[in-house]
Every structure is written in structure tokens, then in C-alpha cells.
């Protein structure tokens, strides 16, 4: 019961808190004062109260996609093990999660195309390219974890029950690194896309949501924040499992560590967005190659572990 309560609170508070923390830390690192920590919450409620402007060319899909995206993101947050105290559901399958991720991207691309603005089209085509590049990394690293767990049930894969060996340490840490690198690209964070720019020609995510306004934009931003915290949490859980090969903390300590790991990733993201410049679009595959390398290492390690 406490699990459910804690998880519900985390699900409500963490997504916008993560976005707010990234913005605040980034501002402080760049010697700016920055917005208040709770600014994403204020924005959300402000946007809900605003009037919505929809393009004349948009069909019913435009508003449907925003709602569908939020539902999918919530569903993903319920089945992906992104916190150690997440209660277990019945249908936590790995492949369901992967296809839900793909469906989420599909609906955001559809929404961008439906409004009929050229920027939406730009953003959608870039997002499609990016997801094509990133997907192997996500799928391979999760599949590697499934191989060492001998199950595709996410609850079994991310349970702290099995004995952990050297192979497991290698697989977990490389899979975690792959997921983190891939999530930076997938969530349109810094080395691939600049989330703060106002030049629509260079953007991926911001160009896709440029036609959304009012409550529609609020839903889109909530879905994005959920995706962000879930992907960071998932990568963080992989690192915690790698840590679990060395030390065996209590359940309550694990819960605190999983929150701390998400904060560490926020810190890394803020640092990266302060010191790194955005990659030219043609050089993005070179960055994604690193994520795929880590995923391939994880997959190789998992197969070697099965062979011996």
C-alpha cells in the first residue's frame, strides 16, 4: 500500500520537477538566476486556462494525438520499471513497452504533420530519422537485460532477486549507458537538439509542437516531461542494478538511491547542455553510434554470459 502511495506521489510530482530542476541547474551553471523550480507546474495550469488556437487545416487527429500521447506516456510510466518502488502490474512485457514507445513517437509525428505547417513537417521528418537511429540502441540494451534475466517480463528483469555476477555487472552498466545516451537523443536534449532555441529551423521537438497552444500544449508538455523522467529512471535503474552486483542495500535505501540517480542524470544533462554545443545534423549518427556501441556491448556480454 505504501508502494502505491509513494509511486502515485512520484508520478505526479517528479515529471515537472525534473524539467524544472534541469532548467534551474542549467541557468545557475550559466550564471543566470533562472526560473523558479516549480515553473513547469505554473506553466501547466496557466496553459490549461488559455484559449486554444487550432490551425484551419488541422483535423480531429490534431487534438486526438495530444491526448493519445499523454495516455501512452502514462501507460509507459506504469509498466516501465523506472523507480525501485514501482508496484508490479500484470502486463509488464518488454516488447509491449518497446512498441508503446514507437506508438508514442508515431502519434507525435502525426500531430506535427496534421497541422500542415512547414515547420511541423521539418520537425516530424527529423524526429522520424532520429527514432530510426535511436531505436536499435533502446531495443538491444533492453533485450540484453532480458537475456540475462531469462524473461521478457519487465518486473522479473528488474527485480533485485537474482545473484549478480561479473557478466551481469558488464551488461547492466553498458545497457544503462546505452539507454542514457539514447534517451538524450530521443528526448531531443542537447547534443542532438537544443530544447531552448527559438530558431524553428534547427529544432526537432520544438518544431513539432509549434502549432500546439493552450490546453493542447499543456498535454504535450506533460507527456514530454513524463517521457523524460521515465527514460532517465529506466537508465538509472540499470546503473542501480550494476551497483547491486557490488553492494546489497535495503529496500528503503534503494528507493532513495533511485531518486538520487535520477537527480545525477539531471545534473549530467544540465552540465552537458552548458558545455557542449549542438551537433550538426549530419554528425548526429556519430553521436548515436556511441549509444549503439554500448548496446551492442551489452548484447554481446549477455550472449557470452548465456554461452558459458
Amino acid at each position, binding site marked *: 500500500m505504501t508502494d502505491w502511495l509513494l509511486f502515485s506521489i512520484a508520478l505526479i510530482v517528479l515529471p515537472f520537477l525534473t524539467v524544472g530542476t534541469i532548467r534551474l541547474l542549467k541557468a545557475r551553471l550559466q550564471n543566470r538566476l533562472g526560473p523558479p523550480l516549480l515553473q513547469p507546474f505554473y506553466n501547466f495550469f496557466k496553459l490549461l486556462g488559455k484559449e486554444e488556437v487550432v490551425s484551419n487545416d488541422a483535423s480531429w487527429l490534431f487534438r486526438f494525438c495530444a491526448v493519445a500521447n499523454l495516455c501512452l506516456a502514462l501507460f509507459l510510466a506504469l509498466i516501465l520499471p523506472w523507480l525501485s518502488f514501482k508496484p508490479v502490474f500484470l502486463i509488464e512485457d518488454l516488447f509491449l513497452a518497446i512498441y508503446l514507445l514507437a506508438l508514442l513517437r508515431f502519434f507525435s509525428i502525426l500531430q506535427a504533420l496534421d497541422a500542415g505547417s512547414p515547420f511541423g513537417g521539418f520537425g516530424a521528418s527529423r524526429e522520424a530519422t532520429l527514432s530510426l537511429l535511436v531505436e536499435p540502441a533502446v531495443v538491444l540494451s533492453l533485450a540484453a537485460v532480458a537475456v540475462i534475466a531469462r524473461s521478457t517480463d519487465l518486473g522479473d528483469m528488474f527485480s533485485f532477486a537474482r545473484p549478480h555476477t561479473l557478466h551481469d555487472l558488464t551488461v547492466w552498466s*553498458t545497457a544503462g549507458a546505452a539507454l542514457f545516451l539514447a534517451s538524450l537523443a530521443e528526448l531531443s536534449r542537447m547534443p542532438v537538439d537544443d530544447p531552448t532555441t527559438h530558431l524553428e529551423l534547427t529544432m526537432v521537438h520544438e518544431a513539432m509542437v509549434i502549432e500546439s497552444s493552450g490546453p493542447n500544449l499543456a498535454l504535450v508538455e506533460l507527456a514530454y516531461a513524463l517521457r523524460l523522467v521515465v527514460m532517465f529512471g529506466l537508465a538509472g535503474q540499470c546503473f542501480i542494478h550494476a551497483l547491486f552486483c557490488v553492494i546489497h542495500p535495503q529496500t528503503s535505501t534503494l528507493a532513495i538511491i533511485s531518486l538520487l540517480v535520477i537527480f545525477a542524470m539531471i545534473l549530467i544533462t544540465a552540465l552537458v547542455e552548458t558545455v557542449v554545443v549542438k551537433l550538426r545534423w549530419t554528425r548526429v*549518427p556519430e553521436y548515436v*553510434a556511441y549509444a549503439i556501441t554500448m548496446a551492442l556491448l551489452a548484447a554481446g556480454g549477455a550472449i557470452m554470459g548465456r554461452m558459458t
Partner: protein
Amino acid sequence: MTLFSFSEAVALLAAILSVLMVGSGNLRTNLLAYALSTAAIALVAGLRAGILGESHLLLIALAMVVIKALWVPWFLSRILDRIKVYFDPGTVLAIPIAMHTGIVLMGISYLLAGRLPLPVDGDPVTGSTTASISLLFTGALFMLTRKTAVSQVVGFLTMENGIFLFALTMARGMPLIVEMGVLLDVLVAVMIAGLITFKIQKSFEHIDVTRLTDLRE
């Protein structure tokens, strides 16, 4: 998890870092990855010193950190500053493909490591044997797929790291005098290679080793 399997994991980390080194065309990033990988190998040597109770390994680990992980990258990056070459466009294979080839080679070295005889009365050393053979392959791959003279030096040093790790795994390290001799050789080799790189840059105005077959400039 014991101290021994921790040292195996660190050895694998060194191999992974050198595979990541192949993925960047930026020469400074290459040097950084080389330094980290060497420091990881020195850590393995230090841990083995504790496990096997052989104090001379500790001395070698310290010398490795000072000479190979700190001095060599510093010296080579100073050379880079003097010849003003910071990027290697690569040759034969595209850089990301070369990195993925490195992983395939790592898999092959795992298969090879399984066929090698284990050291007598030893613990299972598959991890560090895989890492050492993979370092050898990665160094060779790096030398084959790069153009600049500095990259050739870094690739050569990576191979040397692999040989050191192999000796450490299979024979519990060489005698102190041999290891010190090797370190001295590396020191001199890097100095000479740095000077020659500088000379090549001065006389040919490039350090592209694929064009050194031209007799006239």
C-alpha cells in the same frame, strides 16, 4: 563480489574505453580515452598486487600512471598544439563503423580467450584475457583506420597496453626489471615519435601517413 572479479571488471572497462576511443576523430578525445584506459589497467595491476601479494606490481602500476597515463597524453597533446592538427578524418573505414568493428573484434577475442590455457592454480581470468586480446585488436584497428602520425602512436601504445595486461593475466606480470625496461622503451619511443611527427609536419606540411609514399612534394 570479490576483489578479484572487481579487477576483472576494471580490465573490461579498459577494453571498452579503448573501443570508444576508436569512435572519435578528435585527437584530444582519443588521448583522453587512452589515458583513462591506461589508468584503468594500472588500477588492475594495483589490485592484482594486493590479491597476489606481489609488491613490485604496485610499483609498476605507479610508474604506468605517471608515465603512460599522465606524461604521454600531455606530451602528445603538446605536439598537437605545436603542429596544429586536432582532427583525424580516418581512412579505409568510416569512424563509427570502425568502432562497431571494434566490438566484433571484442567478441572474437572472447572466443579466443576461452581457448587459451588458464594460468596454473589461477582463478578464472576470462575477463582480463578478453580485455587484453581486445586491446591488441583495437590498437591494430586504430592504426589501420587512421591517417595522422599521432594516431599511429596512440594505436601502438594501445597495443602495448594489451601486451602488458596479457602478461599480467597469464604470467602474473613480468619481473620488475623487464617491466621497467619496457616503460623506458615506451618513453623513448613516444619522444622520438613526437619529434619525427614534428619533423614530418615541418618538411611535408602534413602528417598524413597515407601520403608518405610520395617521393616528391
